[in-house]
C-alpha cells in the first residue's frame, strides 16, 4: 500500500486529505470526530477579531441542486465565519492539537483590513500549537459586504499587503485562500506570492443563487421572502476549480508555488486529478457535509491503490504530473484527426447520438430503418458530442485517422507532423498565408 504521508509547506499530515475551513471544522467536537475518521488535516473554521462574534441568519443558510435520486451536485451557503467566541475556539484548537500532534491543524483567519487587526489575531493564536494559518480572502457573501473575504481577494494589491503583514507578524506558514469570483485567478495568486505567501489554496466558493421559488418569486435559500447570493461548492464546481489550479500551476510567475486544491473533491479520483494539476494536497468540505467524515476512507484506499498501480511511492510523484500537458489552444495539434466510431455490439439503440448530431451538430451520424447508427466519416468533425451524450460508456470511441490516410471530410492526406494554429495558413498573423 502506497504511503500517503504528505508534507505541505513543511506541514506534515498522514495523508493529503484535509477538511476545508467550513462548518465541519467549526468546533472541537467535529474536528475530533474528523481526526478519528482518518482525515489528515483540518483547516479550522475562520476566526474573526476579538469581541462580540458575528451572527448568522436563523433561517436556512444552505441551498442545493440535485441530480438523479436527489444526489447532491451543488451546495451553496450564506454562513459567515465562526459565530463562537474567539477564546472558545482558541482553547479548543489547543486541546485538539495536543491530542492529535500528527495531524495538520491550520487556522483560517479573517479580520478587518488593517495591520493592527492582523497583528493582534496572529499574536492570539501563537500558543495554540497550530501548524499554520490560512487567510480567508475568499468568502463571497456577508463578510465581503464588510470589506473582508472576497472583497480583499478581488484586489491583488490588498492580498499582497495583508499577506505581507501576516508574514511580518508571524513565523507560521501562511496559505492564502483565493476567491474564484474574479476574471483571472493568476493575478491574486501572483500577489499572494509577492506578499510572501507560502502557498495558495483554491477555490473558495462561487457567487451563486441555487434556485428560485416559483411561487414566492424569491431566491433560495429564502429567509422571510428574501434571499441573497451565497457561495457555491460541491461536485458541480470541480471543473472550474481544476482549471484555476492549473492556471496557477502553469503560470511562469507562480509555477512552483504550493497549491492546496479545493473545489468539489468528492472521491479519491477528484483528489488525484487536483494533484496532477499541481495541488500538493486537497481540502474537502461538501463531500463530508453530504456523506459524513467516513468518506475519507474511500479517498485513502482509492488514492493508495491508484498509486500502487502506477508504481508511485509518494504523493509528490503525482503532484503536477499533468501540468506540462495543459497548454493554450493555439498550441494544440491541428493535424491530429479523429473520427467517432460507434460499436454496434455495445449500442442500445437509444438514438441520442443521432439526435444530438443531426439537430445540433454536423449531421454526421446515419440512422437506418432498424436503428443501426453509423458515423459518416465525410461529415464527422470529431467534436465528441456523441461520446458525451451516449449512455453506454465506451460504446462510441474517437479513433485516430493515421497520418498518410485521407480525411474523408476534407479530402486531404493527414500530415505526419505536428501543426498548430500559429503555423496555419488561415491565421491572419501569418503574413505568407494569403498570396
Amino acid at each position, binding site marked *: 500500500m502506497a504511503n500517503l504521508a504528505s508534507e505541505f509547506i513543511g506541514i506534515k499530515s498522514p495523508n493529503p486529505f484535509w477538511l476545508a475551513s467550513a462548518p465541519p471544522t467549526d468546533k472541537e467536537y467535529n474536528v475530533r470526530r474528523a481526526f478519528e475518521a482518518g482525515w489528515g488535516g483540518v483547516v479550522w473554521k475562520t476566526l474573526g477579531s476579538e469581541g462580540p462574534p458575528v451572527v448568522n441568519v436563523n433561517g436556512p443558510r444552505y441551498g442545493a441542486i440535485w441530480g*438523479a*435520486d436527489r444526489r447532491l451536485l451543488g451546495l451553496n451557503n450564506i454562513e459567515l465565519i465562526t459565530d463562537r467566541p474567539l477564546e472558545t475556539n482558541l482553547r479548543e484548537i489547543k486541546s485538539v492539537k495536543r491530542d492529535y500532534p500528527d495531524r495538520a491543524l491550520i487556522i483560517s483567519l479573517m479580520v478587518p483590513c488593517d495591520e493592527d487587526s492582523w497583528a493582534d489575531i496572529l499574536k492570539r493564536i501563537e500558543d495554540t500549537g497550530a501548524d499554520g494559518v490560512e487567510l480567508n480572502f475568499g468568502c463571497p457573501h456577508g463578510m465581503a459586504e464588510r470589506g473582508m473575504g472576497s472583497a480583499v481577494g478581488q484586489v491583488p494589491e490588498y492580498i499582497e499587503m495583508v499577506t505581507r503583514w501576516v508574514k511580518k507578524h508571524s513565523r507560521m506558514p501562511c496559505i492564502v485562500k483565493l476567491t474564484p469570483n474574479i476574471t483571472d485567478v493568476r493575478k491574486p495568486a501572483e500577489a499572494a506570492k509577492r506578499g510572501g505567501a507560502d502557498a495558495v489554496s483554491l477555490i473558495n466558493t462561487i457567487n451563486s443563487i441555487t434556485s428560485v421559488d416559483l411561487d414566492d418569486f424569491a431566491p433560495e435559500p429564502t429567509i422571510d421572502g428574501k434571499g441573497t447570493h451565497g457561495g457555491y461548492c460541491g461536485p458541480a464546481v470541480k471543473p472550474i476549480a481544476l482549471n484555476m489550479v492549473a492556471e496557477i500551476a502553469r503560470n511562469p510567475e507562480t509555477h512552483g508555488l504550493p497549491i492546496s486544491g479545493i473545489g468539489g473533491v468528492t472521491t479519491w479520483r477528484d483528489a488525484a486529478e487536483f494533484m496532477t494539476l499541481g495541488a500538493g494536497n486537497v481540502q474537502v468540505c461538501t463531500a463530508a457535509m453530504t456523506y459524513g467524515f467516513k468518506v475519507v476512507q474511500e479517498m485513502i484506499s482509492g488514492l493508495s491503490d491508484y498509486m500502487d498501480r502506477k508504481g508511485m511511492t509518494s504523493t509528490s510523484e503525482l503532484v503536477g504530473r499533468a501540468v506540462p500537458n495543459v497548454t493554450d489552444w493555439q498550441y494544440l495539434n491541428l493535424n491530429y484527426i479523429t473520427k467517432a466510431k460507434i460499436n454496434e455490439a455495445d449500442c442500445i*439503440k*437509444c*438514438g*441520442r447520438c443521432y*439526435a444530438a448530431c443531426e439537430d445540433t451538430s454536423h449531421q454526421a451520424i446515419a*440512422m437506418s430503418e432498424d*436503428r443501426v447508427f453509423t458515423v459518416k466519416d465525410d461529415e464527422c468533425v470529431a467534436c465528441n458530442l456523441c461520446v458525451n451524450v451516449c449512455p*453506454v460508456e465506451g460504446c462510441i470511441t474517437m479513433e485516430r485517422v493515421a497520418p498518410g490516410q485521407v480525411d474523408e471530410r476534407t479530402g486531404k492526406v493527414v500530415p505526419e507532423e505536428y501543426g498548430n494554429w500559429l503555423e496555419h495558413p488561415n491565421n491572419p498573423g501569418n503574413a505568407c498565408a494569403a498570396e
Partner: protein
Amino acid sequence: MTSNTLTPGIAAGRLPGEDYSRNFADLHPVLDDHEALVAADRCYFCHDAPCMTACPTSIDIPLFIRQIATGTPEAAAKTILNQNILGGMCARVCPTETLCEEACVRETAEGKPVQIGRLQRFATDTLMAAGVHPFERAAPTGKAVAVVGAGPAGLSCAHRLAMHGHDVTVFDPRPKAGGLNEFGIAAYKSVDGFAAKEVDWLLQIGGITVETGQALGAGLSLEKLKADHDAVFLAIGLAGVNALGVEGEDKDGVDDAVEFIADLRQADDMSTVPIGRDVVVIGGGMTAVDAAVQAKLLGALNVTLVYRRGKDRMNASVFEQDLAASKGVRIITNASPKAVIGNGAVQEIEFEYTDDDLAPTGETFRLAADQVFKAIGQTLGRTDLPELDGRKIAVNDTGRTSMAGVWAGGDCASGGDDLTVTAVAEGRDAAEDIHATLMA
C-alpha cells in the same frame, strides 16, 4: 360458513376474512412522488423512441416521462390521454413487458426497462385525483353517432367523437359501462372501482349518453341504428365462449372463465364468491391466467392451468405466467382435454399429451377437479353483422366495415391483438375517420 381450503366441492368463504383484502390488493401500487422521479430519471429520452413505436396508441412516452421528471405530472397525463383516453386503465392492464417496456433500450442495456407502465399510472392517477378532465368539447356539429359497446374501443371512440362535437349514444347490454375493464380483467389490477371511476371521468367531456341494458339483436338492430344515426361504431367484443368439444362438458362445475371473472369483479365481498377446492383452468391466455390466479386467491387448494401447446406459445406473457406460478398456480403445457368425468358434477378431467402441432401422443392423465374454467377463446356469437374476416368483422385501417356508415373496432374487429390498448387505438382511429367522413 365454516369452509376452508380443504372443503371439497365449490364453496365460498374458504379463507379468513382479512386474507381477501390482502390477496386482492393492488398488484402494482402507484409510485410515490420520489419513486416516480427516480424511475423517470432512468429514461434516456430516446430519439424516435422504440417504446413509442411499440405502443399501440403511440403515446409519446419519452415526453411524458420527462414531464414527470420535471414535476409536471398533469402535463404528462395530458400527453398520455391525448393518445389514449383510457391511459389510466392501460397503465394497469397493459402487458408492458411485451410492448413498451420490452422495447425500452434499458431492457437491451441492462435487462431492467424504465417502469413505463407505473410512470403512466403515476401521471394519470395524479390528474384524475385532481378531478381534472383536460379536454374540451368542440362546438356541436349536429351529427349523431351510435356506439355499440361501452368497452375500451367504444368508450375511446365515443370520447373522441364527442370531443369533435358530435352527439354520441353508447349502447351496452350490461348494467354498467366499461366492458372488459369493468367485467373482465383480474380484480387486483383494477382496485377501488377504478374502471367505473374512469368511465365517469371520461364522460365529463359531455355529449355522450350511455344506454345500458341495450343489446344488439335484443331490442337493437343494426338497420335501425343506421337509420337513426349518421354513423355507427360496433365495439361489441366477443360475447360467445368457445366450447371444449369434449364428452361431459355439460356437467355441473364446468364454467366459462369470463363469467367467473365478471362475477368476481362485481362482488362486493370476495368471501361470498364460491370456488372449487381443485380447480382446473383450460387455456393459455390472459383470461386463463386471471381466472387461475384469482381462483387461488379465493382459497382454492389446487389450481392447475392446462394449455394444449408449449409454454412459449401461450398468449399470456411471461410476466403473467410467472405471476401465476408465484401465486401457486401449477402450469401444465402440451395437454388437451379429452373428457370431463363425474356423476352430475365434474370430479375429474382427462387430458392427453399433445405436441406443439397438437398431434396427440396417446398418453393421458387425469386431474381431480370440482371446478373447471374454460378459457380457450371467445367468438362473436352472432351473424347479423357486416362481412367477416375469419371469425371477426372485417375492417380496414380506420375501422371501416363492408357496410357504408358502419365502423368497427376492438375485439370484435379484425386486425390487432385483443388488448385493451389496441381497442382504445382502434376506437380513436375510427372516430377520427368517422369525423372526417361526417364533416366532408
